[in-house]
Each structure stands twice: as C-alpha cells, then as structure tokens.
C-alpha cells in the first residue's frame, strides 16, 4: 500500500518530459535538426551582408574577403553550413503546401505546384544573388 495515499483525495500521476525528448523519435529529431539548422540560414545572411560590405569598400577589400573564404578551415566550415542550409531549405520548402492554399478558377492547386513554385523562387533568388556578387555579369 502507498502510505501517502489519502482516500477521497485522488492524486494524478504526471510524467515529466525528459530533456532529450527530441531523441525519442526520428520525427522529433528531424524537427529539432530543422530548427537548429535555421542558425545556418542566419549565418549565410550575415556572410552575404559581410561580402556586400567588402564589395562596397572596394576591389582590394573584396579580394581579401575572398581569400579568407578560400582558406581550408573556412571552406570546410562553409561546406557544413551549406549542408545545414540545404537540409533546412528542403525540409522547410516541402512543408509549404501545409500553410499555403492557392486557388485558380475556384479550384485548389495541387501541392506539387506550390512546392515547385517555391523551389523556382529559390532558384531565381539564388541566381539573382550570384549575378549581383559577380558584378552584374
């Protein structure tokens, strides 16, 4: 018998959520990875702004910035950032049809059109950034 039990005073059992709950299921781990890789997105934005600043300071400053990017440790780190960025972007864009319902002539467009539209926009935006950083050529 439980000595702490009092008749007519029921005691609900509440289970605490473990700190590493996100390792308990692959879906939870994928979710946390998607959330954490958003840091890579933030980093990529800061890197892009830094390159724009270097460009604004002149050709020599930009050349120095590119030399820094070409250093092997930086390159290795940026490969990791790129992998995280791709994971975040792909998992996020694939979820777009859950949030976005597009209609044409009163009919709802299928999910693949919404996903393809996002990938197309991603491609166009990436192309525009590359075009800009290459000096518009």
């Amino acid at each position: 018998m439980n000595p702490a039990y009092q008749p007519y005073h029921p005691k609900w059992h509440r289970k605490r959520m473990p700190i590493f709950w996100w390792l308990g299921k692959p879906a939870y781990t994928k979710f946390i990875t998607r959330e954490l890789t958003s840091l890579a997105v933030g980093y990529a934005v800061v890197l892009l702004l830094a390159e724009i600043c270097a460009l604004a300071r002149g050709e020599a400053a930009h050349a120095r910035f590119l030399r820094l990017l070409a250093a092997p440790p930086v390159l290795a780190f940026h490969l990791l950032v790129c992998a995280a960025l791709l994971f975040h972007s792909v998992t996020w864009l694939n979820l777009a049809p859950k949030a976005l319902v597009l209609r044409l002539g009163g009919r709802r467009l299928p999910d693949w059109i919404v996903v393809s539209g996002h990938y197309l926009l991603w491609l166009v935006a990436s192309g525009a950034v590359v075009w800009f950083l290459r000096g518009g050529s």
Partner: protein
Amino acid sequence: MPETTATISLEVLRYRPEEAAEPVWQSYEVPLRRDWMVLDGLNHIKDSLDGSLSYRWACRMGVCGSCGMMVNGKPTLTCATYLAGLGPGPIRVEPLSGFPVIRDLVVDLRDFIDKLKSVKPWLLRGDEKPLADGEYLQTPDELAEYKPYSMCINCMLCYSACPIYALEPEFVGPAAIALAQRYNLDSRDDGAAERLDILSRHDGIWACTFVGECSAVCPKGVDPAAAIQRYKVGATAAWWRSVLMPWGTR
C-alpha cells in the same frame, strides 16, 4: 470465433495511487487472434484475467475517440490496431502521454475539454435569417472546404504526439485549433474574428512550432498541423490589413 492456442504478451502500465506512488508494468498473456484489436486484448484482461484494470472505450469502431492509448510508444486508437500487426510482442500499452493519469490507462480529459470549449466549436452567426427564408444552403465546394477538419473525433492522439503541448501545457493544441478552423471555413459561420481573438494569443497558434506529428498520428487524416499553419497565414494577413487599412473591417 475459432479457438486459438497462440498468445501474445501485453505489458500494461498500471497506476494505482492507493498501492504505489509510481506506475508499474504488469504483463498479461492474451490470445493472439487474427481479428483481435489491442482493445480486444484489454477487454480479455478485464473480463478474464484482472478485473481491476481501468481504461476507457465505447464504440469499438473508431468513432467515439475514447480508446486512445500509447501502444509501443505511439499514440494509437486501440480499437483500430490489430494485435497480430504488432507481433511477436510484447506489446506495451501506456496511457496517452502529455496528460495527467488518473488511474491505469485513464487520463484526465478536462484540460482538453476546456480548451475545446474556448475556441467555440459551433456555428456562430452574425444575424439569423428568418425561418421562412429556409435553410442555409451550401455548394459541394463549400462543404469540401471544411469537411476534412470535421472528421476529428476528439481522441486526443494529436495532443499526445505534440511535444509542445507536453512542454507548454497552456498551448491550446492541435485538435481544438483544427476544429476552430473547421467552423471558420464553414460558409454559414461568422465567428472567425471572434475565434481569432482567442487563437492569436501566445498560447494559441503561435505556440505551435510545426513539429507535424499531430497530423502523422491522426486516425482520421484531419491534418491539424496544416490547419494551424493556415491559421497563422490568415492571422498575419489580418494583422497587416489592420495596419495598412485601419479604417477597414477585419
């Protein structure tokens, strides 16, 4: 029903507060019949092995939403899950996670019921038309708009799968928001703005971080995750309208 000699082990997490402060596992051998669901196994325990086992069930046909439990760690409707499909066992049955346990497999529903009521899941009309004007008619397209969300049976599996609800119990939760959306999308309803006031709070739609498991476990394919994300899009659009066109109605 044909006789069978094959059995399967059901390990049930039992909480009897008068006996122990913590739940304990108890193992039972139940007949492994081809047409038996997990719920049939629990009913066999209750009827033939141990009458003290407590759990909820009612319709036995996936409609009432009473028999949701964790089966092998996954939120599951026990009346819709074959024992044979989970072989060779043992099969672990626990109360729905994320909820306080009253006894054995019975969880406290009150928090969910209160949240469900808070989103006003019924038709709200601005003004009623006279009875003589007849019914509120709907086209098949208008029906299709909200019908998927109307399939919710309040089984709470989505709450159990949602880590946010377990971490932040104030979160209104997937089923309540999906049902709010069901009425918002109904052409006969005028209550969207009223519900938005409730759901645009921090513990409403914005608490959801889009894990998506609520939709993965829904036995009726309701997709509450999509309902919440669309609600967020709608709430954001309403906010921008109120900023850019403050003279307009929401």
